[in-house]
């Protein structure tokens, strides 16, 4: 396909028509269409520094600190040395730059990988009659758009004009089937699929949004504080400052008011630590760390596909702990998209109980992957019981599967729905091997003997009929009609003589349905030659009728499909992924609402709903909101959407079927818009991309063929059941950690900052700092950075087992309980209290005292040292109180930081540092002279006690009086291991559940089909099953072998509807 790979560059003006010539690079280049190369990197070596810096300073926080820095350069204002801002700023900028650089390198690698692996992101056109090669073929077609079901264009080749429609193009991500090569022409660089992927928006977490509000509030608060202090300065300067000018003359032109103005800015500089620059960086580091845990988690690693979980976005972790709604795809997400023939009932006898696995060695054509556990059925086949033979003969004849046999005995079935594939494979293994078909015949190897049946008619499946039949003539010349379909439908058409068998089979069917299996009833009928001849005549007339063709055909089918003889029933398991029902139950216990959005039919979706335990027997009021009028779901239109949402939210379980990818996204947007809840979308295919992008969190199921969902997701893993761990464990922890981090971080910085505020009342509002400048510089970066990081990387309030045992522990996250505006306000109040203690206790203890040798200790430097030491101890102990999981690392960080504080302090206050730079280290000797004083330590002890004990008492009281779910869970004994899931017993009957819209009937009988012998591979394309389901017609829309116009069929049966299920209780009925 890379033969005609073309490069396009961007085109500025709106494109109306696209013109291309095959093998004419210059011509094509002249249009400057988008190229195939995927470029995701932002920088190169030279542009990195300026670009990155520019970008970083666009972040409001960084710009704010730059302005602060500029303010500090004004001597009249500068209340702090320049380094107090420069050191943190440089550190923050370089950490962020390093992260950006690595991100960019990673994306360069991914892009180069993609660029080498994908020859093109393409829409090659397929020629109806291949006039190969076409050296000067010219294509005119529509410009790239997002319509997947439509394409118009023309191909001019050698003076001949061919029309190009949707059946002639391949979309990105298709695989070739039934052929090894083909000719094509790349049309678009920006593919239809990419255009359909929805907008990629930058996702932010709700904590982020809350933070933005809080930071704005804090800025406002800062301005208020500074204004108050400036007013204080104004008053002070007027009443006392003017008296003090003898000792401290004012500079020229500075009066009390101007001094107040300068003081305002000076205090802005000093109090800026309420919004510490390290906050954002720390948050990113924490999220990154918690993302790594997801990558590293062995419990989310799928050994079978060798796929570990992957956090593709490192900025959304805490949101995982707040999910309220989950939107799940069905096929490939809840189910494995594997159907297995599990049980059957033949002539009133049920087969398929679990015994030992059947050995297929007697059948050389058997598919070894197929397993069956009941030997008695094999015995029955070998005993040539006629009913059993007819049963399997029906399965091998009545279907629209196509066989591909590349080598003798290596059969490959191309089934439109996996159900059919499973049935045909079952027949194959039991010795009725469907081998090949032509439009007029079906070749079957029956118990080793090849037999060729004449295929006289296919009475195809559709949604209303819920059955399909074939009419064949056996090699012996016997005419027979074989029918399979939904049991209720078949039962209506049975011969009266079957009534006894019906009863027994019904019992079996109920049993199967109770196990969540998809059932089909099988029946056959011998046909009278004369009657059939006549019927065939009428059929021919009807099928060429111009008016009401469908109805006429339906009537004819109805007529012949009656008085059938019941053969038995099959039970197919739509294999759920492991642990899906348990996961769903756990998640719903955690108050998470799960909505299934699927493109499948109602019956299929319902069926899965039951087997996932989402729907249960007691939910007997299933009601359906259908909107069968247009392509777009009626319920999602303006006025209806609120009603839809209200009704849906009353329901315990919501299953939306036959939704298009865009509608999936619409549903997600709807919930996002009106419920203010955090949503998560999980899916595996390209049809889920829009929903994944629309939800707050998108999860992709990885390890399967399609990658689209994973590429646009935020998290990916191999199995649905890992969702439980992602949310209940990782999400919960991440949220908890982030919240603990934020509350503690604000606490420690507010406390730190407010002390300045109290000191202002003693130093004439002159913007004197309480602490040493070095302490201000290093407080956030060195002394308190690691302990809080350690807490937010390691903390666990309860371990993962508890999280699973008590899914309710997840609820506080949904309710935003751990960090909200209230929590923030409380934390600010706590800081005010702490700062009062931290300032006034040292003040009262020191202002009038001296050292034990009579020398000075009430000096500014000693006081600064005392206060900052008290502060460091207090915030350390507070951290210890907040931390509920002390690992060795945490111990190291906490004690290490305390040690670091003293080491750095002694170093900064040493003779050597002072002599090296007297102006920068004026605190020489303070540590040595203060910290050997008992009263200093007694003060530190007292402040620590006063700061911490009330908090302990408060928390203890809360636990006693109003214990949270958390306290309760911890107090409760660990309940017994998770009980084994009891299979529901149900009387519900599954329907004939094919996942496709309409059968291949037309195709199979088409005369243009299969010109070559069966062994030779036929040529044609199929879209890769999993990546094609984005058309409203379901997964079959893209199937277009050899240009048969399949899509022209009217869509009346398949209009979109949204179905919902509810219990009587929730609706109050």
């Amino acid at each position, binding site marked *: 396909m890379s033969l005609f790979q073309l490069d396009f560059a961007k085109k500025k003006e709106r494109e109306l028509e696209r013109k291309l010539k095959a093998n004419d690079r210059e011509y094509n280049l002249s249009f400057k269409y988008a190229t195939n190369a995927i470029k995701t990197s932002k920088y190169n070596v030279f542009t990195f520094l300026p670009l990155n810096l520019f970008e970083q300073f666009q972040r409001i926080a960084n710009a704010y600190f730059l302005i602060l820095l500029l303010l500090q350069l004004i001597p009249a204002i500068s*209340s702090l040395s320049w380094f107090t801002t420069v050191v943190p700023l440089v550190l923050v900028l370089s950490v962020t730059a390093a992260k950006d650089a690595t991100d960019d390198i990673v994306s360069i690698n991914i892009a180069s*990988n993609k660029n*080498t*692996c*994908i*020859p093109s992101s393409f829409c090659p056109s397929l020629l109806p009659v291949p006039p190969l090669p076409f050296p000067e073929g010219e294509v005119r077609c529509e410009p790239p758009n997002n319509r997947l079901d439509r394409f118009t264009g023309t191909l001019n080749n050698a003076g001949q004009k061919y029309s190009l429609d949707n059946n002639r193009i391949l979309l990105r991500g298709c*695989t070739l089937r039934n052929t*090894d090569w083909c000719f094509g022409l790349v049309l678009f660089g920006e593919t239809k699929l990419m255009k359909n992927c929805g907008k990629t928006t930058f996702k932010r977490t709700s904590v982020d949004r809350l933070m933005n509000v809080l930071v704005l509030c804090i800025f406002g608060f800062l301005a208020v504080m500074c204004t108050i202090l400036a007013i204080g300065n104004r008053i002070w300067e007027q009443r*006392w400052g003017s008296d003090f000018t*003898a*000792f401290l003359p004012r*500079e020229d032109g500075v009066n009390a008011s101007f001094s107040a103005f300068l003081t305002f800015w000076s205090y802005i500089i000093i109090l800026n630590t309420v919004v510490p620059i390290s906050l954002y960086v720390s948050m990113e580091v924490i999220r990154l760390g918690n993302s790594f845990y997801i*990558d*590293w*988690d*062995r419990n989310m690693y799928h050994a079978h596909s*060798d796929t570990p979980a992957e956090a593709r976005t490192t900025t959304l972790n805490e949101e995982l702990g707040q999910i309220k709604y989950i939107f799940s795809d069905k096929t490939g997400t809840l189910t494995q998209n594997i159907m297995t023939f599990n049980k059957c009932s033949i002539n009133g006898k049920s087969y398929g109980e679990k015994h030992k696995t059947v050995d297929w060695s007697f059948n050389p054509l058997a598919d070894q992957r197929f397993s069956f556990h009941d030997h008695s059925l094999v015995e029955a086949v070998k005993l040539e019981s006629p009913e059993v033979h007819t049963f399997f003969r029906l399965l091998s004849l009545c279907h629209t599967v196509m066989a591909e046999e590349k080598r003798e005995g290596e059969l490959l079935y191309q089934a439109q729905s996996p159900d059919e594939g499973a049935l045909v494979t079952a027949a194959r293994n039991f010795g009725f091997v469907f081998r090949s078909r032509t439009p007029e015949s079906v070749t079957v190897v029956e118990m080793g003997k090849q037999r060729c049946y004449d295929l006289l008619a296919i009475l195809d499946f559709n949604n209303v009929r819920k059955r399909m039949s074939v009419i064949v003539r056996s090699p012996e010349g016997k005419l027979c009609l074989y029918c399979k379909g939904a049991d209720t439908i078949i039962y209506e058409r049975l011969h009266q003589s079957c009534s006894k068998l019906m009863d027994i089979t019904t019992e079996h069917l109920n049993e199967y349905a109770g196990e969540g299996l998809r059932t089909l009833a099988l029946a056959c009928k011998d046909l009278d030659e004369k009657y059939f001849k006549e019927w065939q005549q009428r059929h021919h007339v009807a099928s060429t009728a111009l008016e009401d063709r469908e109805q006429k055909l339906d009537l004819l089918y109805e007529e012949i499909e009656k008085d059938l003889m019941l053969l038995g029933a099959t039970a197919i398991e739509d294999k759920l992924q492991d642990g899906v029902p348990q996961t769903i139950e756990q998640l719903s216990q955690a108050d998470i609402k799960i909505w299934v959005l699927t493109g499948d039919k109602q019956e299929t979706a319902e069926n899965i709903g039951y087997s996932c335990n989402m729907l249960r027997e007691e939910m007997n009021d299933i009601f359906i909101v259908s909107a069968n009028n247009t392509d777009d779901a009626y319920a999602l239109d303006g006025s209806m959407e609120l009603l839809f949402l209200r009704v849906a939210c009353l329901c315990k379980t919501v299953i939306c079927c036959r939704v298009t990818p865009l509608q999936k996204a619409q549903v997600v947007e709807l919930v996002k818009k009106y419920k203010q809840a955090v949503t998560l979308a999980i899916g595996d295919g390209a049809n889920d991309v829009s929903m994944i992008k629309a939800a707050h969190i998108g999860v992709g199921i990885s390890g399967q*063929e*399609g990658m689209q969902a994973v590429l646009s997701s935020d998290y990916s893993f191999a199995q649905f059941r890992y969702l439980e761990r992602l949310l209940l464990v990782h999400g919960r*922890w991440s949220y908890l950690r982030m919240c603990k981090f934020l509350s503690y971080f604000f606490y420690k910085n507010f406390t730190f900052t407010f002390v300045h505020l109290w000191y202002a009342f*003693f*130093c*004439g509002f*002159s*913007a*004197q700092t309480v602490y040493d400048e070095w302490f201000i510089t290093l407080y956030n970066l060195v002394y308190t950075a690691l302990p809080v990081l350690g807490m937010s990387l390691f903390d*666990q309030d309860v371990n993962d087992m508890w999280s699973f045992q008590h899914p309710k522990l997840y609820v506080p996250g949904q309710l935003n309980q751990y960090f909200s505006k209230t929590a923030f306000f409380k934390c600010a109040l706590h800081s005010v209290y702490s700062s009062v203690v931290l300032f006034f206790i040292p003040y*009262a*203890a020191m202002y*009038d*005292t*001296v050292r*034990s040798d*009579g*020398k*000075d*200790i*009430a*000096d*500014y*430097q*000693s006081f*600064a040292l005392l206060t900052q030491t008290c502060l460091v101890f207090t915030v350390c102990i507070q951290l210890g109180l907040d931390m*509920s999981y002390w690992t060795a*690392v945490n111990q190291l960080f906490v004690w290490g930081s305390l040690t670091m504080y003293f080491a750095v302090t002694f170093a900064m206050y040493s003779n050597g540092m002072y002599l090296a730079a*007297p*102006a920068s280290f004026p605190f020489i*000797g303070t540590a040595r*002279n203060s910290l050997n*004083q*008992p009263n200093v330590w*007694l003060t530190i002890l007292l402040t620590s*006690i006063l700061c911490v*004990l009330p908090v*302990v008492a408060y928390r*203890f009281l809360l636990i*006693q*009086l109003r*214990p949270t779910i958390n306290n309760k869970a911890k107090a*409760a004994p660990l309940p017994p291991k998770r009980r084994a899931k009891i299979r529901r017993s149900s009387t519900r009957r599954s329907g004939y559940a094919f996942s496709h819209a309409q059968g291949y009937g037309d195709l199979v009988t088409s005369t243009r089909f299969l010109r070559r012998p069966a062994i030779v591979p036929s040529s044609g394309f199929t879209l890769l099953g999993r990546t094609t389901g984005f058309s409203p017609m379901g997964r079959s829309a893209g199937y277009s072998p050899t240009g048969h116009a399949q899509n022209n069929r009217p869509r009346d049966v398949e209009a979109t509807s949204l179905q919902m299920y509810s219990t009587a209780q929730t609706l109050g009925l």
Partner: protein
Amino acid sequence: MAPTIMGKPEVNPGPLARRPDNSAFKQQRLPAWSPMLTANTVLPFFYGMAVVCILLGVWLLITVNNTHQHKVDYTQGSCDECFEMRKDRTKADQRCNCTVGFRIHDAFKGDVFFYYGLINFHQNLRQYMDSRDDGQMTGRKAHLKNPSPYCKPFVADQNGLPIAPCGAVANSIFNDSFTLFYTGEGSPKVQVPLFRKGIAWYTDKNVKFRNPQVDNKTQTLAQVFEGTTRPLFWQKPVYDLDPRDPNNNGFINEDLIVWMREAAFPNFKKLYGVLDRTRKPFKEGLPSGNYSIQIFYNFPVQYFRGGKEVILSTISWFGGQNRFLPIAYLVTGSLILLLAILLTAVWWKFGKNGQNMEE
């Protein structure tokens, strides 16, 4: 040529090649200590803390009560005349003496420290504190003649001569001086001997403050300071602060050093001298009796509506006579005790049987 659409980024060497490591760190299973606030830990801790605080408070209170302190405010009163004189700036150069008398009833046993105190003097204003040059006072020659601009507006005099020591702090040095006299029962008035050295921090005296290097033995301190001028408010130059003792002269004059260690709060006291206990009758400390202080009243306080005082004090192991800490410990201890009782009651009523814990 079956095209692979999505190439896997890496080729896997083994079936479990991408399995994450099973380390305790990566699986978040690091062994850890998880403390919880239970009645068994919290209540004993509270009672323990209450006992500790109360005991500490009692002990400190006893210690503090064993110290003595006497404060004399001399701003006005018998020094009214000087106070009025200092209001007039033109008379700044005139000397003014006054004497304040007081009586000590109980003898001050042990080391006695003589402090001067200032009230409402803001040594902690940012602009004031910044107005100094530590480089200059460390004896850096470059800074001596070329003081840091931070010293503004006390960098140079009208003639452009650099000021040593520069800056507002040094300029406003406290320049009252005191002589303490003792009049015992039936004994004559004797001067109380005070050590005027050893009143500054060791590090300040020996590291932070240094005189500029004397080039050779013959050079005097005055010669070193040539080319600089004394601060505006000073009566004598820095090299003349204590001409008798070269180790207490210039930048290393201890009164200067003590002053340069700026106080944190507007009301403060600074050490002036320590009682010399080598001579009788002061071997045991200050005996009871009448005392008088002769004051050379130079420092003007009326500008800033301040006050001046003299404090005589003995000292305990945890410093001067500040009763805040003992009382604070006693109050804190009592509060904790009350809190502990409250917590116990609450726990007894609600928490003990765990009825609140049921889900």
